[in-house]
Structure formats: structure tokens, C-alpha cells
């Protein structure tokens, strides 16, 4: 049994049974991972081809692509497409606006403004507060009757909104809250990238007569491309798979359902059918995979090293 423990390296902590201790301890995280995460993940893919029910002890049979067919070609398919469109809107708007604003603010803060630590701490605060608190804060701000934002709208434009209760606008406000919440996170990642850019490059550029935009475009941007990749990945995966903000604000009413929300809803509060949400999870996974691959390809191209 020597081969299980002895690899390239000498194990310095005793012989015999002692050699197996690292492996035994490693089995704990391994078991947690396989039981709670890896296993269920693979099972979900398998379930998507079966008619499994959420009943203890029930058996299931393989039904081929029936679940997928039902997703897109049954009576409810209109709603399904709306979820998919919502998901894509959510992902594009969040990724672009959040990263755009975050990069802009990071560049501003990085010019050594007074109190820069305070600013980044404040912009990161919503992540600490968590989605339950954030949703309630904006619930009060966006209260249609007495909320401050409606007062502001009324004073400025003589217009009132229903916010999270509006069929056409609720989703937009959810996107706003999502960006408000996570902008600080992206900003921090950009700041870390910006601080690693050597200062003498700018001086060299300055001597060559670059203006601000040129030095940003040709010096800063290529150098912070790795943080750009990280941010793109985080916000694409995040926007595609989070739905807690939807759950906490509208609970899926007023045309605010996304695919991630649908998976939750069908699993948890829908019928006993579990094949359908499994199939939806698989579709969701494929879409994430597609966009991640495209985004990584695009940003990798722009990365350089000096």
C-alpha cells in the first residue's frame, strides 16, 4: 500500500500508519465536496434526462430529451423564453454598467484623492450588509407611497412610479440595486490592478506627449486587463446564477423572473417534477459556459506584460 502515500516527496512525519494520516484527513473535505456539491451537480445533469419526482423512495426512468422539449415547446414556453431574455438582459446590463462604473471610479480614486480608504470602504459596505438588508433599504427608498425617491421624481418630473410593483420597471430597479450592491467589489479588483501599474511608464508616456485618454488606452488598460478578465468572469457568472436579490425584492412577480430564479422556484415551490428544473439548470450552465469562453477569449487577447 506504499504507493498511496509516497509520491515524489519524502513524508517526514513518521512511518507505517502515520503515512496515511494526511490522506485520512483529506478524505473529510473530499467527502463534503462529493456529497454536497460534486455529486448533486452531476446528478442534476442526469436528472435532466429522467422523470424523477421529489418523493422519497420513488423510482425514476430515463425519458430522453422530454424535459428539454417540455421547456421550450410546451404551453409555458413563452414564459420560459421571457426568463431567458430577462437573464440575458440582466447579465449584459450588469456586466457592462457595473464594470464600466467600477473602472471609472477606480481610476478616479487611484489618483491619490484625500480619504481614498474611506471611499472604498463605503462603496464596499453593501456587500457586508448583505442582500436581505440591502433589499429592505431600497424597499424603503422605493416605497411607492411615502418613499423618498418617489418624492424626488414628483418634485423633479411630476411623475410617480410603482418601482418593485411596476410590471415594466421593476426589473430595471432590480438591476440598479444589484449594481449598487456589487459595484464596490469590482472597483476593488480594478484598484488592485491599477496599483500594480509601474508609475514610470506614465512618465515615459508623458515625455512622449501622450494625453490622458491615450495613456489610459495604451498604458493602463493593457496592464489591468487581467483584473478586467477577473471582473468579467465574476460578473457574468454572478449575474447568471444569482437570484437572491430577486427573491428579496419582488419574489419573481412583475416580470422579474430569470433562469436562476426559475430553477429555484420549480425545485422548491413548484410541482414535484424535478426533471424540468434540472434541464433548466443544464441550459443555464451551457449559457454561462458559452459567455465565459467568449469573454475570456476577448479579454485574453488584450493582456500584455511589460
Amino acid at each position, binding site marked *: 500500500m506504499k504507493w498511496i502515500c509516497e509520491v515524489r*516527496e519524502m513524508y517526514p512525519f513518521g512511518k507505517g500508519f502515520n503515512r496515511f494520516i494526511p490522506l485520512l484527513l483529506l478524505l473529510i473535505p473530499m467527502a463534503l*465536496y462529493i456529497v454536497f*456539491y460534486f455529486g448533486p451537480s452531476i446528478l442534476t445533469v442526469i*436528472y435532466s434526462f429522467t422523470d424523477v419526482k421529489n418523493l422519497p423512495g420513488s423510482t425514476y426512468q430515463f425519458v430522453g430529451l422530454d424535459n428539454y422539449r417540455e421547456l421550450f415547446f410546451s404551453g409555458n414556453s413563452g414564459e420560459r423564453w421571457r426568463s431567458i431574455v430577462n437573464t440575458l438582459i440582466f447579465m449584459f446590463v450588469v456586466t457592462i454598467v457595473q464594470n464600466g462604473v467600477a473602472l471609472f471610479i477606480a481610476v478616479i480614486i487611484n489618483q491619490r484623492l484625500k480619504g481614498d480608504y474611506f471611499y472604498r470602504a463605503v462603496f464596499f*459596505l453593501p456587500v457586508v450588509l448583505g442582500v436581505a438588508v440591502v433589499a429592505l433599504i431600497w*424597499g424603503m427608498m422605493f416605497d411607492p407611497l411615502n418613499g423618498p425617491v418617489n418624492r424626488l421624481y414628483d418634485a423633479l418630473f411630476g411623475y410617480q412610479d410603482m418601482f418593485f410593483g411596476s410590471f415594466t420597471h421593476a426589473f430595471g430597479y432590480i438591476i440598479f440595486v444589484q449594481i449598487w450592491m456589487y459595484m464596490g467589489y469590482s472597483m476593488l479588483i480594478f484598484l488592485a490592478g491599477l496599483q500594480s501599474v509601474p508609475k514610470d511608464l506614465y512618465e515615459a508616456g508623458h515625455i512622449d506627449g501622450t494625453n490622458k485618454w491615450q495613456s489610459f488606452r495604451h498604458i493602463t488598460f493593457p496592464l489591468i486587463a487581467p483584473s478586467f478578465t477577473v471582473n468579467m468572469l465574476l460578473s457574468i457568472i454572478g449575474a447568471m446564477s444569482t437570484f437572491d436579490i430577486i427573491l428579496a425584492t419582488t419574489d419573481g412577480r412583475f416580470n422579474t423572473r430569470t433562469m436562476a430564479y426559475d430553477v429555484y422556484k420549480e425545485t422548491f415551490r413548484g410541482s414535484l417534477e424535478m426533471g424540468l428544473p434540472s434541464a433548466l439548470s443544464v441550459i443555464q450552465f451551457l449559457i454561462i459556459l458559452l459567455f465565459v469562453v467568449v469573454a475570456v477569449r476577448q479579454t485574453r487577447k488584450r493582456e500584455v506584460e511589460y
Partner: protein
Amino acid sequence: MRNSKTTQILSYAVIGLLLILYVVPLLLVFNVSLKSFNEYLLNPIGIVKNIEWGNYSQAWSEGNFAGYFANSLIYTVTATVLTIIVSLFAAFPVARGYVMWSGFIYMFFLLSQFLPNPMVAQYKLMLSFKESVSFFGYDTKLGYILLKTTGTGVVFMMFVGYIKSISRDLDEAAGMDGSGYIRYLFQIILPLMKPVIATGVILTAIGIWNDFVGPIMYLPSPSNYPITFGLKEFRGQYGNNWPLLACGITIVAAPLIILYTFIQKYLVDGALAGAVKS
């Protein structure tokens, strides 16, 4: 490159506007929390005139926040400590190559970041655990804590990177002196990893404390609610009584904000390390 006066003024203006967007909602919530319901209806936005501290005691007792806080603390502390320990168990032998196929195991654990959404089967699994053993699985504290404990996530990856920077000579010296593996991990390696453990603790704790979906799916009985779920229920109960709800928000947010001002520096650095490594 020196900045001109105008860019500087513009910069402060942009930051100032954004600060308003981030700070004003918090101040408004605090302001509303001090108003009586009648005053709120008459004057929802203006600065409070008659401070009504009674709101807080009412919210505290009717929201049952003490119980929710206790639950949140239990979940956060146990799952965070367990996560740090099992991540160490996973990271150390993988980083050192003390187990077979450590490269493969590393990739296998890394895969956890890219797997399809496991929610459906996870839910069914938790239900079937509950079917067979009553103290574990769906709607049990223990089940939720183990679900939240992971030795293979971002913390694991940070640990592997950090352990590689600790010299292997130390292992050999300790082994020579007759130290066992477990004792070496806890007495020598763990103290050496303080900075990365601080980061790991903060990241994990924020994630668990703020988990919103997990408790809704897996902890349906009120005796198990953590603070996030408690706040949601509180809202359901008091619909439009915003002074009372604002008290709830403040009660939940204030400890976090106070704690945050103390650990803010670690947290900002930690969040960065976590994100960049992943």
C-alpha cells in the same frame, strides 16, 4: 503625471455624488427608524422631530431578533471554523504532495467553481437525509452547517498558494524532532498562516452570515431562522410600517457596520486576494 485643478475638482464631484448615493439611503433609514408611525405618514422624509426610541424596543421584542442573532452566530462561527480546518486538511497535503495524485486532486477541487448548478439534486439529497436520520439534513442546524462547510472553495485555493511559500525544511525539522502530522498542522503551520486565515475567515463569515437563499430552502422552521430570514419574515409581518421596519434594518445593520469599521482594512485586502486568486 500631475493632475490639473479642474480634473481634481471633477474627481471629487463624481466621488461626492456617488457617496451621496451610498450614504444617504442609510441615513434616511436611520432617520425613519426614529419617527412614530404618524409622524412618518405626515412627513416621511424630513428630519425627525420627536425621537421615538420606543420603536427599537418594540421591533426588538416583536421581531424576535435575539433568537435570530443567536442562530446566525451559531451558523457563522461553526461553519467558518470548520471551513478553515477542512480547507487546511485539504490544502496542506495537496500543496506539499504528501498524497497520491495531488495535482489531479487540486484540479478536481478547482472544478467546484465551474460545475452546473447543483441545487435540484442538493435539495432532494437534504430531504432524503432527513427521511433517514431526523437530526440531519433538511431543516436541521447540523445539516445546514455541513452544507455550508467546504474545504474546496476559494479558501482552499488561497491556502494552497500560501502553503507553497512556507519552506519545506520546516516540515523536515519538525518531523526530525518527532512531531506528528496533526500536531504540526495546528501548532506550527496554522500560526504561520495568520494573514491568509484572517482573509479566509472574513470571506467565509460574510458569505454565511448573509446567506439568503440557503435558509429559505433548508431551514423552514422559525426556531432555525438566521437573521436574514428573520428580517424577511419581519417585513412580511409589518408590510408598510416603515419606522418599525427601519428599526429592524438598523438593528441588523448596525453591528455589521461597527464591526466593519474595525476590520475594514483586512476585509478590503482580503476580498481582493480572494477575488484575484479565484
